[in-house]
């Protein structure tokens, strides 16, 4: 339970060592040097009236309510913009100040509706509060003067209204949009009394550049920018602190409720990952949790052609357990397995892998991270010793150069992107390595220093060339390498070979050699240079190699082990990190320890009371192959829609169809459930009780906002299946699960719910050596001892353009949608992205007679789908791009079986395709003709 209204100290902190003593209203206080008088007073418990000030933004000094008197100073300075000084004597309450403040408030109220009782912000309005605080009793100007009471309301955004008649022009929204979000969509239009908040060039919010992050709504002190849900439902009465279940940033939110109904999600100021910021998904797109499509009762059927029938929990659980045992009896111990989900909590994932290892008695457990960040696990383990990003998000505040490789933070990780943009606006430099001109290449007030627009599939050639420049131009941090690393000499002579030079690879990478050299020099020459990467690195046939290539580069330049540097995966899902940490991979027990390690197995065998196999189990694609072979016959799938999200859909569907038992645990009847025999309804994050671990290894509490709508927690269901299979597995609550993780896993030894409740969140490793966690890794030494240079030979993918399939398809995400879209498609976010479209370069479009908006067919050698074309030059000639948020598009119908050599992570980012006009377009309008609806077909 958190406070509905958190204290607001008015202006931001100025972290530093020094303190000064000031006298505020006769009270001696020691406060940090450089903070404002307002904040100093607030720290001393003295609240100075304010409207335009809020501690999430720099002081602005416009409302003039916070005036104070300073001994020896002239007039009445604003306390928000006046920094404390040694020996300063401040008076915050005098007769004169009271009169001035009342005078200012009198002006405000002379141009404000007097509808407090029926106003949605009634009870949560700073104007109302301040009016009370200053004791305004009369507005002598009357209300007949010039005013804005007739200003219209903008209802265009699906989640919030902008009621201009209530605006006090404090600019908090405008500042939030620029300072916090960095989008600069809002501005003040006009001047003087005509000043008004405007979105872009006076457009509606929806038509403007607004990304609906909610920062403006959060910042508004009145009801001018107000959540639609508050307007409809009224003010929340309680709040619960929890963690967003969308991307890997892991934002902390206060779920604000009336009874059991969520009124709004408010980003939490003290959230370690987001510090009070949010994006359109986490802030607003939570409606799916109560969407009518949600299944609330277990369902079963004998054959996938039968209709579903609702059953009781005991029946469903009993059936699953007995079928699993039967199948094992018949086809052997290894004939069944499970898949964990990165959407679920650490505790839920832990019990699934425990069920597989202890109750099923095999290692056939894998996770959906297989298809996203498994190469991160492999690559960082080989080089640094553990599978995790090296930094906390805050670290980027110290970066002088950021390299963003194969990631699109403004769409995929918007809250972290805002932090990056803030640092870039302070003067840090940006290098983007991506085939697509992502938004960060050029955005308001910012431009990347270098955009290495490489050909898809040539990552390793590019990173090797950068390393080549570092090695051959004398940019290696020799001291760091000598002291901290091994394998350098062999790597150095390998990478110095002429075939790795930028000039030598220019033809295949299509990156101009001089540009690449300049980027490499910028990276190596920076005081602090950090690498951030996404699935554009991992989802390649050399995904793991690329991860190691980046690690090599970081080690060679000494860019590891302190603030501002590092190699950081931007995790796609809320709990990718956690689900991997929890031992979801078939070869690893929790804490990334190989199953062949006798000592580790012994720890778990002791606690679990069952022997653990020392051989790795099947990975997801191996499960499919084995299913088609007939040796793998039953699978428990926790919250993952493999039929939509895994490559080569046809192959996946065939494999699932070949199995005797497919059990799906999910919120919705997804594409996979169409091929399942048992459906176990899952819980949304609002019902879950546990922890998520974000991309910076931060373990955040997920607290239940309501009881499970399905009647059972997911971890309870798992335990009951295991029990029914004859394995005793019981916990009273999820905190006991985390205690078991802590007891068995050294990097989690110090973690407990009690600790998390006390300190908010911790970043693992958290143990005796780091009792409140480890924000930056590899500070004194690498986890594996010495950092290991790995020779990363560039091996071209076999997937390449041919005469029949001359274009390369690559995929990505969009801000408003999340992955396969099963959640965001069930919210008003569809207003921004009603369908997936194919981005195609004007030249490629012209060659094919394709016009903007035409329905086109997209075909690879494995499948074909149709979607609408969007002509744009973000991609180079020869490359097309789409998103994979809508099942109807079926982007994975066309993706192939190629995968990362080390981890089998699918090569989503490179598929040779052909694009053709689907049929002569009657009209270019998307919705004009039903025949134009996109569809996907499987071809044999």
């Amino acid at each position, binding site marked *: 339970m958190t406070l509905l209204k958190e204290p607001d100290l008015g202006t931001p902190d100025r972290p530093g060592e020094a303190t000064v003593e000031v006298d505020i209203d006769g009270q001696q206080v020691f406060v940090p040097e450089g903070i404002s008088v307002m904040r100093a007073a607030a720290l001393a418990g003295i609240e100075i009236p304010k409207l335009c000030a809020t501690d999430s933004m720099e*002081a*602005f*000094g*416009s*409302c*003039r*309510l916070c*005036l104070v008197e300073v001994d020896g100073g002239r*007039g*009445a300075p*604003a306390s*928000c*913009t*006046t*920094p404390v000084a040694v020996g300063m004597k401040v008076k915050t309450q005098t007769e*004169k100040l009271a*009169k*001035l403040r009342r*005078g*200012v408030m009198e*002006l*405000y109220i*002379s*141009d404000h509706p007097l509808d407090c009782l029926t106003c949605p912000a009634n009870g949560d309005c700073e104007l109302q509060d301040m009016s009370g605080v200053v004791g305004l009793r009369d507005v*002598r*100007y009357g209300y007949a*003067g*010039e005013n804005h009471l007739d200003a219209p309301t903008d209802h265009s955004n699906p989640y919030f209204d902008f009621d201009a008649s209530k605006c*006090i*022009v404090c*600019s908090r929204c405008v500042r939030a949009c620029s300072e916090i979000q960095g989008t600069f969509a809002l*501005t*003040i239009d*006009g*001047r*003087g*009394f*005509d*000043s008004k908040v405007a979105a872009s060039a006076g457009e509606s919010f929806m038509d403007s550049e607004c990304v609906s992050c909610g920062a403006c709504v959060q910042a508004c002190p009145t009801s001018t920018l107000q959540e639609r849900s508050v307007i409809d439902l009224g003010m929340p009465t309680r709040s619960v602190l929890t963690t967003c279940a969308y991307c890997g940033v892991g934002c902390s939110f206060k779920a604000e409720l009336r009874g059991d109904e969520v009124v709004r999600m408010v980003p939490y100021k003290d959230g370690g990952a987001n510090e009070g910021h949010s994006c359109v998904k986490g802030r607003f797109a939570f409606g799916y949790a109560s969407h009518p499509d949600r299944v609330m009762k277990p369902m079963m059927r004998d054959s996938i052609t039968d209709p579903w029938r609702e059953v009781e929990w005991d029946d469903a659980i009993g059936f699953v357990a007995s079928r699993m045992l039967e199948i094992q009896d018949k086809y052997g111990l290894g004939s069944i397995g499970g898949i964990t989900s990165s959407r679920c909590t650490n505790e839920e994932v832990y019990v699934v892998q425990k069920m597989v290892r202890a109750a099923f008695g095999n290692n056939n457990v894998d996770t959906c991270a297989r298809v996203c960040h498994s190469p991160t696990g492999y690559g960082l383990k080989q080089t640094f010793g553990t599978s995790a990003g090296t930094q906390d998000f805050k670290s980027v505040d110290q970066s002088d150069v950021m390299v963003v490789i194969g990631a699109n933070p403004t769409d995929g990780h918007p809250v972290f992107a805002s932090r990056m943009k803030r640092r870039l606006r302070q003067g840090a430099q940006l290098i983007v390595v991506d085939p697509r001109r992502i938004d960060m290449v050029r955005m308001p007030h910012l431009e990347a220093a270098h955009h290495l627009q490489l050909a898809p599939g040539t990552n390793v050639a590019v990173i090797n060339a950068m390393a080549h420049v570092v090695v051959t131009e004398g940019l290696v941090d020799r001291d760091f390498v000598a002291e901290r690393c091994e394998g350098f000499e062999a790597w150095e002579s390998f990478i110095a070979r002429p075939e790795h030079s930028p000039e030598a690879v220019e033809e295949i990478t299509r990156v101009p050699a001089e540009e690449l050299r300049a980027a490499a020099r910028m990276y190596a020459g920076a005081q602090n240079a950090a690498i951030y990467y996404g699935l554009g690195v991992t989802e390649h046939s050399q995904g793991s190699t690329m991860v190691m290539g980046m690690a090599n580069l970081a080690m060679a330049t000494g860019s590891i082990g302190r603030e501002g540097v590092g190699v950081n995966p931007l995790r796609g899902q809320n709990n990718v990190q956690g689900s991997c940490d929890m031992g979801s991979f078939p070869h690893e027990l929790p804490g990334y320890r190989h199953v062949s390690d006798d000592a580790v197995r012994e720890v778990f065998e002791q606690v679990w009371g069952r022997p653990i196999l020392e051989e790795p189990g099947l990975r997801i694609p191996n499960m499919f192959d084995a299913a088609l072979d007939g040796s793998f016959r039953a699978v428990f799938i926790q919250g993952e829609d493999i039929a939509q999200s895994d490559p080569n859909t046809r192959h996946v569907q065939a494999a699932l169809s070949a199995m005797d038992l497919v059990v799906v645990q999910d919120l919705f009847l997804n594409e996979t459930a169409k091929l399942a025999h048992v459906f176990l309804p899952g819980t949304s994050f609002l019902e879950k009780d546990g922890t998520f671990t974000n991309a910076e290894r931060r373990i955040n509490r997920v607290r239940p906002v309501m009881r499970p709508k399905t009647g059972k927690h997911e971890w309870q269901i798992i335990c009951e299946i295991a029990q029914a299979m004859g394995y005793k597995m019981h916990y009273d609550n999820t905190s006991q699960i985390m205690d078991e993780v802590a007891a068995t896993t050294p990097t989690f030894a110090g973690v407990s719910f009690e600790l998390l409740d006390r300190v908010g969140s911790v970043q693992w490793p958290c143990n005796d050596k780091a009792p409140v966690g480890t924000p930056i890794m590899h500070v004194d030494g690498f986890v594996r001892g010495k950092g290991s240079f790995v020779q990363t030979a560039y091996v071209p993918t076999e997937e390449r353009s041919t005469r029949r399939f001359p274009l390369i398809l690559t995929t990505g995400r969009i801000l408003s949608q999340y992955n396969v879209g099963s959640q965001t498609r069930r919210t008003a976010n569809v207003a921004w992205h009603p369908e997936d479209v194919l981005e195609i370069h004007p030249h490629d479009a012209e060659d094919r007679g394709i016009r903007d908006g035409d329905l086109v067919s997209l075909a690879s050698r494995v499948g074909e789908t149709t979607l609408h074309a969007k002509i744009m030059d973000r991609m180079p000639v020869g490359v097309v791009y789409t998103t994979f948020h809508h099942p109807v598009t079926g982007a994975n119908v066309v993706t192939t079986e190629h995968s990362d050599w080390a981890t089998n992570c699918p090569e989503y980012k490179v598929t040779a395709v052909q694009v053709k006009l689907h049929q002569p377009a009657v009209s270019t309008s998307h919705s004009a003709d039903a025949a134009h609806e996109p569809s996907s077909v499987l071809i044999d």
Partner: protein
Amino acid sequence: MSAPVTVYVPRDSAARSVGADEVAARLLEATSRDHVRLVRNGSRGMLWLEPLVEIATSEGRVAYGSVSVDDVDDLLAAGMLAGAEHPKRLGLTDGIEWLSRQSRVTFARVGVVDPLSADDYLAHGGMTGLRRALELTPAEVVAEVTESGLRGRGGAGFPAGVKWQTVLQTEQTPKYICCNADEGDSGTFADRMLMEGDPYTLVEGMLVAAHAVGATEGYVYIRSEYPDAASILSSAIEIAYARGWLGQNVLGSELSLDLFIRIGAGAYICGEETSMLESLEGKRGEIRAKPPIPALAGLFGQPTVVNNVITLAAVPGILSDGGSAYHAYGMERSRGTQVFQLAGNIAHGGIVETAFGITLGELVIGYGGGTISGRPVRAVQVGGPLGAYLPTSSFDLPMDYEAFTAAGAMIGHGGLVVFDDSVDMAQQARFAMEFCAEESCGKCTPCRIGSVRGVEVIDRIIAGEDREANLVLLDDLCEVMTEGSLCAMGGLTPMPVQSALRHFPDDFAKDSPGTRTRPAQLAPEATS
């Protein structure tokens, strides 16, 4: 064949507005190039005599004014080119008492030189200030400026040396020099006249400032209403680059300065330094809260000197003649000369550069000659639209920053606007609020809403609605605006309002507008 006669016809826009271009064109038409060398100089600042035509003679420059295009043939026929007598002949320019009584220091070259002639500039002492500055260390230059007592001529009167010292001491680079040429106050035109009549002085002043504080880039922010000033200054900058006065290694020294002109977009508020900086950065012209002061975090967050045109233009003289010479002018803490601008209902309007300490009456009557309408002076607004309205009883007030402050007034940028006895001071008070409402940037509440309410309250007072209560309310509003506004715009708006209330209370006490008969005013005591 004898050498051609040099004839001066100002190109100053004030002169052009009364026909200087036509006069010049007619002169060229009516004479041969062999006989006349036409120089388009700046204005001497005697605006009632424009167009003022000058002829270079062996005795000196002989002035004729005001010359209309129709006078030209007659004047030529009378032998003007030889300096002959004519009803329009004013004698030697230097002998005109109105001019000779002044202390032209900053404006020494304005009207004298060919504005764009670099040689002329050098011949009249140009670049000696910079040359001397380059011989000194930056700290010594700052000390010289500090010693001179020069205060900001834009209006605030902040000591220039102190500002420069702050920027000099700040280690962060790059540093900038920003010249505020957004001269928007009513009745002011000194910045414009200097830029049009002697642009190199401004360039030189900025070079000295750049050397003094270590700046490498300079910006001149000119209001869009000054196209002539902008084009002359921009030509001057071009020529200065060609001469090696700008760019890398100025005059062969270590000093490098690039100078740019930026044109405003018509907002009065951009004359306020922080708004000007916002505008220079390409943003909306809106006040920044201080601190941080621009000297520490100005343009693009870097240490920045922001000075008015006249402040910077005073600097070359201070360097060439020494700070103490400049300091010798003036009184108390107001040292040096001020370039006063006489405007409004005045007989002899124009530029009066003179030492501080001259009385208001001497300026209005002694120089200005009273009203042009011939009616008695009733009020003088000093310091722009936000300055106080002073009655004739204040004519003894010396022009001194502190004396004016004590009198509830301000000198500002040195503009004086004169009104005769037909003025309705309640309407003037209303106008002050209206002006504020029109020009407020809208950032702070007292200014944004207060100015609008101010107009409404004054309207009610004028209309006799609940007058006593509304006078109290107006007083409270003025206090909120004065004490509570973010910048001088809102903070000073009450000054004209309250001075009008204080000095002319009767104008607010009319029973209904327009029915009042004004009591006869005392004739001004001082006459010239």
